[in-house]
């Protein structure tokens, strides 16, 4: 919240950008964290599968579903204690798919709170709405 107060009180639009923590740093970190998380989950799943079965001939299809159902299935499986290597791989792919989505979602709020730039709140909001429709309601 202190971030937010400082930028909104500052009247000069040019000099307000705090270089330690601005949109570039935020987005760069989200993208990096998402890809790393995804890779770690996938590698853990693959190594575990390899140890368990002695090979890596993974072959499991998912039936057609949107990301919401994909996540709900994974979370249900996790909560029921049925934790398998395949679950880690699924979660790794889900993390990868969520990475650009979270980046867009955070951008909407950044433009809204830190920059109060309504044009770009609208643009990023549009992208976000289309993605939410396609990922969660299709």
């Amino acid at each position: 919240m202190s971030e937010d107060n400082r930028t909104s009180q500052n009247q000069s639009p040019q000099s307000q950008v705090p270089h330690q923590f601005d949109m570039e740093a935020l987005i760069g970190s989200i993208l990096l964290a998402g890809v790393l998380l995804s890779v770690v989950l996938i590698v853990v799943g693959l190594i575990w599968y390899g140890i368990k079965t002695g090979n890596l001939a993974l072959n499991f299809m998912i039936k057609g579903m949107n990301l919401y159902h994909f996540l709900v299935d994974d979370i249900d499986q996790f909560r029921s204690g049925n934790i398998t290597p395949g679950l880690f791989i699924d979660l790794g792919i889900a993390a990868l798919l969520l990475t650009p989505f979270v980046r867009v979602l955070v951008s909407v709020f950044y433009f809204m709170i830190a920059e109060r730039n309504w044009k770009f709140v609208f643009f990023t909001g549009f992208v976000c709405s289309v993605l939410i429709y396609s990922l969660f309601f299709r």
Partner: protein
Amino acid sequence: MVAFQWLFLISIAAGLVGAMSGMGGGVVLIPALTLLGVDIKHAIAISMVAVIATSSGSASAYVRDRITNLKVGMFLEMFTIIGALVGATITLISGHQFLYIVFGVVLLGSSTTMFFERRRSGAKPAHQDKFTRWLQLEGSYYDQAENRTISYRAVRAYLGGPLMFGAGFIAGLLGIGAGALKVLIFDLAMGLPSKVATTTSNLIIGVTALAGSSVYLAAGLIDPGQASAVILGILIGAFSGTRVLVRLTNVAIRHFFRIILILLGLEMVLRGAGVL
């Protein structure tokens, strides 16, 4: 069933070739996967997910270097995601032969265009049109090679938007990043400096690929087992490729890549036409 290790190795190779030639991985990955016996629609779907990984990985570095123009990217994403949704939907209803032929033609096309020497983006005296100014599409970045800050203004956003719909359409249809096409639009239609064009195109590719992936996911075309091998392989290939050689200038090696593209393109066209 294609063995894990083959998927993994071919994806490393595709990532390497993609990074070294600057074409991106998908254009090589998909023909290679189909040669291994993966169904073309599955290959397109898996590649689309892998594109999210490579683009997000490299975009994270470019964005923090402050070369990427976030506003330009976020304005144009509106067009590319719609294009990708339409393109991916068309792939779902298309026949396999049609996809082979379109892909083959795109490969043959990129084999000719990737070797045109990029003209130097001369500093255009930017007379910004009203619409682009209203969108605040301008910026500056620090150029390490030239050791100075370069300011620029984008132009013709009204042209860039619709053209980006087309680039998104190709990306979604074929499961590729279509980065070269996006860079071309930034360069020719919107007058962005080439570094800003490549890095901003990279940022847009991730979201565009996500839109395409959402269609393929809902259609059940993404096999997590195969996708995991391809994602890891292409990331390893792409990052070792960018570390070892930033960009190839050696003419002999570029000719070699060109021949690979032509052979893969011909193979796909012939397969689509039912000759192979």
